[in-house]
């Protein structure tokens, strides 16, 4: 019994998979807190799609895929910013146009190149077939993103909650608007080879959303988000070994289950709180003699907190 449970740890590819999902999920979980608070979910989605032409071109030119992907992601962010500043179309629409256009170019190139790259690998990654060198590459990018977040994280937080105050304090708002997109692009590039596009979009939204439901302070939020992301990633890879399913999709589904659990608990807790409030008010009213409540007064009691 114990042997069967320990089986995944005996394979070196499984151990590498455990390491790489942890490495990718740490910076993404922290970034997801910023994204969820600011309402930038489409941005992660857009950059993740827009890297495709970069990957194909890098493959054709035989330069590291990460470099091509990063340049393409950056192109998407800059083009979106430029178009938005020079015309009257809303930012999310512009983003949709730019990333779908780039993705389409990527698909055409991909089809023409007829390479041994697989589209499913780009979409879902190849967690189990990862090489040591890409583990190191991913680790380096993750550490870099983490360092920047540790050093400038408080500035970014101020930027998100109150951009005007940030500007008054001398933080370059425009620079950091693009700075966040660069960080996003970097962490997506790091994640892409290992876990693919779908999981990186999900890792940039779901942990933060879970954390926002349960915490009231930013520090707590980051901790909760990290816990959710790391535990789901490890457990997802572990379960996919037995289910024989795609690890990336399994991780996304696990995170969704966690979100559902927290969400249902929260609805239940809210209801309980409303009930307690009503009972308390009733108790106070019936206890105080000079304030003898009649039935008609009771009907006027507030039903919502």
């Amino acid at each position: 019994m114990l042997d069967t449970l320990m089986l995944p740890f005996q394979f070196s590819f499984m151990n590498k998979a455990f390491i790489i999902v942890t490495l990718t999920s740490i910076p993404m979980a922290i970034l997801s807190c910023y994204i969820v608070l600011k309402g930038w979910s489409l941005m992660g989605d857009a950059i993740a799609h827009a890297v495709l032409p970069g990957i194909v071109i890098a493959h054709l030119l035989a330069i590291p895929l990460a470099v091509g992907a990063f340049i393409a992601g950056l192109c998407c962010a800059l083009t979106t910013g430029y178009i938005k500043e020079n015309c009257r179309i809303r930012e999310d629409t512009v983003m949709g146009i730019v990333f779908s256009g780039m993705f389409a170019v990527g698909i055409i190139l991909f089809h023409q190149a007829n390479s041994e790259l697989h589209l499913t690998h780009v979409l879902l990654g190849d967690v189990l077939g990862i090489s040591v060198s890409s583990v190191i590459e991913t680790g380096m990018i993750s550490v870099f993103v983490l360092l920047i977040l540790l050093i400038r994280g408080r500035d970014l937080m101020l930027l998100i909650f109150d951009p005007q105050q940030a500007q008054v304090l001398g933080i370059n708002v425009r620079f950091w608007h693009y700075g966040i997109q660069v960080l996003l692009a970097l962490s997506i590039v790091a994640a892409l080879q290992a876990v693919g596009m779908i999981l990186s979009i999900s890792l940039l939204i779901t942990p933060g959303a879970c954390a926002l439901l349960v915490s009231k302070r930013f520090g707590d939020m980051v901790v909760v988000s990290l816990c959710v992301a790391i535990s789901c990633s490890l457990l997802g890879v572990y379960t996919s070994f037995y289910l024989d399913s795609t690890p990336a999709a399994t991780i996304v589904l696990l995170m969704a289950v966690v979100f559902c659990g927290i969400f249902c608990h929260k609805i239940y807790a809210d209801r309980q709180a409303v009930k307690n409030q009503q009972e308390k008010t009733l108790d106070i009213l019936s206890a105080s003699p000079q304030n003898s409540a009649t039935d008609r007064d009771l009907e006027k009691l507030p039903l919502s907190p």
Partner: protein
Amino acid sequence: MEYLLEPFGYEYMVNAMFVSALIGVVCAFLSAFLMLRGWSLIADALSHATVPGVAIAYMAGLPFSIGAFVSGGFAAVSILFIKRRSLLKEDVAIGLIFTTFFALGLFLLSLSPSTVDLQRILMGNILAIAPWDALQMVIISIATLLFLTIYWKDLLLVFFDEQQAWMAGISPIKLQILFFACLSAMTLAAMQTVGALLVIAVVVTPGATAYLLSDKFSHIIIISICIGLFSSLLGTYLSYFIDGVTGAIIVCLQTLCFLVAFIFAPKQGLFSHIKRRKEALRSHYA
């Protein structure tokens, strides 16, 4: 010359051009409304959310439109529910649900890899569409087109000013639900031509391009339909020669249209913006 006319000699090419043009026109019509409300993310989410439904329908041997419709509807309901019951912003709820549904679809497909062609769901393949599927798409598109041509003025009023619509005796909720049903039906149809990953382009880009070229809503609709029609026709035609993915070529053409409009549009374009800025500076210093 003969070489250029070659695609018209094949029945499957003519059929594909007809179906994709029809779908392109209706999607472009919808895009004019979506752009008004800034609902681009919703179309993207709907197209991704239909994947598990399509996967299950293929596995069970049902018509795939039923599966797609059910899972799309389920996704829409859960987005609304999360948004109403928590502090999460709308885009977070949408992003969360669509990645989850998409992952569910891929998870199901990875459990039984041989039954469905993943590439076909993601990329679409209008050139190899089965006659029965093509018929479904034509019926859906024509029904949506009829609805939109009859009700476009009411819809416009609802989207611009809901209260005014109430006063005029139009029920905004009923129209919005109908509009969403049309939108999800058309995302389904567009999945056949351009695939799940690029549906967002055909329901956003034509409307946005038209918005740069005109200020009047009826003109926006007409321009947007023209862009949808020509890009779909030309894209399908070109894909015969390039031997490429039809959907990606259509989307590329539309993005090209957008870029041209963005740079050269008479009033809203980049050049006229720069010119106006310069004139303002000159008059300021004069």
